[in-house]
């Protein structure tokens, strides 16, 4: 099995890379390190995937390792289950968030439960990569944020990177995990850039650890994936209002890092959770509940949420109203009962 540790050779110089390139590198290195890793999905072969995350991999590793599948998501994930039972380590690509739904039955009823049903005899080390979220002007069904469906399913890990380095590290860790991982890729950050190299020390973070992206004292913005840049921008803009905002990037919704979140909220006393997906029954509801349960006496105001509205994803020309933006985040911060102090 893959150990997913960085190679021992001298670290390469950091170069500008996109999140897409880091993801591709992670798949590449996983395929190179572990012969049981098998990439499958629609258009992942010759085309290299519609987002080019698998670009050139079928050429390098052959169509038996990086495989174009028939157009059937239940088929893709269902056969990945069988492949995993046989001893392979499938990495499945779903083309877009909403196109993963045909595979939901396989995911909920089989992928998530197999370890439990077989009393540990048959773990399923499957990684399901799903580009998710909006902000790309996509036509209908190309902008969903589906994390709440997955995090409500016991047995699954739900991971989502927000930086180039994490894209590499978290994907390596997900593939190495012996549990199934739903790996949500914020598609509007695919072309975001950072100086990065695959063998930098932060290469492979453990799953389930959040990280403080910006330290602050006034309030904590808790977020993940595509909303991280929004929160960082809001934190910068908030300085003008006299707020010193801390930003926590969850990186992994399941397992959830209560420690990092609560540590931050206990220090700041105020929290806003920010995500794109609809608010009702969303990740923010769970996060707010956990904070309230654990940090109630440290809170100076109720935990607020800035989320997508509870509506079907609107057409591209209206999506900016739906998506949490800097102003909506700051508007929520302004409502954190400052006058009470």
């Amino acid at each position: 099995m893959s150990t997913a540790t960085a190679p021992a050779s001298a670290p390469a110089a950091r170069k500008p890379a996109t999140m897409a390139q880091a993801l591709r590198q992670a798949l590449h290195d996983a395929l190179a390190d572990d012969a049981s890793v098998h990439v499958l999905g629609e258009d992942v072969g010759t085309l290299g995937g519609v987002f080019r995350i698998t670009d050139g991999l079928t050429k390098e590793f052959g169509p038996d390792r990086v495989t174009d599948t028939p157009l059937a998501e239940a088929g893709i994930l269902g056969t990945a289950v069988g492949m995993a039972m046989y001893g392979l380590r499938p990495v499945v690509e779903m083309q877009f968030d909403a196109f993963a739904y045909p595979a939901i039955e396989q995911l909920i009823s089989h992928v998530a439960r197999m370890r439990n049903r077989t009393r540990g005899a048959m773990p399923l080390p499957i990684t399901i990569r799903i580009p998710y979220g909006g902000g790309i002007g996509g036509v209908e069904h190309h902008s969903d944020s589906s994390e709440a469906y997955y995090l409500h399913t016991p047995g699954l890990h739900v991971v989502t990177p927000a930086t180039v380095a994490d894209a590499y590290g978290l994907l390596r860790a997900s593939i190495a995990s012996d549990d199934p991982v739903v790996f949500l890729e914020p598609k509007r950050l695919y072309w975001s850039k950072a100086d990065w190299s695959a063998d930098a020390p932060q290469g492979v973070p453990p799953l389930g650890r959040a990280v403080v992206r910006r330290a602050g004292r006034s309030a904590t913005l808790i977020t993940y994936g595509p909303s991280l840049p929004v929160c960082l921008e809001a934190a910068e803009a908030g300085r003008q209002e006299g707020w010193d905002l801390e930003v926590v990037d969850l990186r992994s919704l399941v397992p959830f890092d209560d420690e990092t979140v609560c540590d931050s909220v206990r220090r700041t006393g105020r929290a806003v959770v920010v995500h794109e997906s609809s608010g009702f029954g969303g990740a923010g509801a769970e996060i707010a509940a956990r904070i309230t349960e654990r940090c109630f006496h440290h809170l100076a105001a109720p935990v607020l949420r800035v989320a997508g509205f509870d509506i079907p994803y609107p057409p591209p020309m209206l999506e900016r109203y739906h998506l949490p933006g800097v102003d909506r985040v700051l508007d929520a911060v302004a409502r954190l009962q400052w006058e009470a102090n």
Partner: protein
Amino acid sequence: MSVKSTAARSSRGGAKRRGGAGRKPELVQLLTPEGERVEHSEYSIDLTPEELRGLYRDMVFTRRFDGEAVTLQRQGELGLWASLLGQEAAQIGSGRATRPDDYVFPTYREHGVAWTRGVDPLNLLGMFRGVNNGGWDPNLNNFHLYTIVIGSQALHATGYAMGVAKDGADSAVIAYFGDGASSQGDVAEAFTFAAVYNAPVVFFCQNNQWAISEPTERQTRVPIYQRAAGFGFPGVRVDGNDVLAVLAVTRAALEHARSGEGPMLVEAFTYRMGAHTTSDDATRYRLDEETEEWAAKDPIARLKAYLANEGLADETFFAEVEAESDALAKRVREGVRAMPNPEPMAIFDNIYADGHALVDEERAQFAAYQASFEGSEEGAAR
């Protein structure tokens, strides 16, 4: 361990089995690529010169509109476009076979079918411009909204047809889908339901040889039309670039459905001449030779040759159609630029039948929030 043996196994099988048990699949054709009329033992057609010219006009208009949409996308007026270039005969022939009281379930590429149903081409552009999720009322023309999720509408069509059958109406339903879609469980389930309930539905598969970058061999080892046999209803493959054959076969299939004989599968053998969508780069996965080979089977050129050779249309007619299609393109071009931007508040409409506390609360909050920007430069959120 397992890995090696898997690799060895998966390379077995191979091209030999393609096309079924060695038989060359039968292809219904009434007009050859050279524009010669030929007869078929089971399917025939007898059209007036007027009707033939009408089909030509439909195809030229459709192609012109489609080309205009591609241009509009390049100019930034549309976010995306899925071109039907090369599939005009499959769409016009099948669409013209439907009656107004039939019901049509399209995919995102059925601009030609939409034309035959009387949907204003301008309305097709709204979702590709990003102003709506489907810019027409499906009830007006019995033409459902474009379904983007692959295969789902095959089940919707089947259920609709079950409703028609319950009512004893003599209309039929037609479901469009692609070669790629034929792999979806939904499509197989639609076949099962339609067969079991003897539903008056025609499954119209445009096999345009590609599902984004994957050739049809990635989806099936037998010709798609032969699948129908396993479900217990007839399937037929028609030359999808021959508008006469498509019209004849689809008419027969709809008649079959209407007369209570149940579903039928029509596989229109055609070709996607353009990229999958304007976001796609087809040079990454297919060869020019293949596209050129299919260009020689062009649906419009062959009908034009037939009309000209038989003296059924003259230069004046062709020039007229050209001029009319220019006018259509101009109207579409101007229309799309004049399309009003949607109202932000509209995102809260039509989510539930009646007032809904959660949505109403969010609508009110959003209205107040928007109002707080009044007078500011942007007037809207960052």
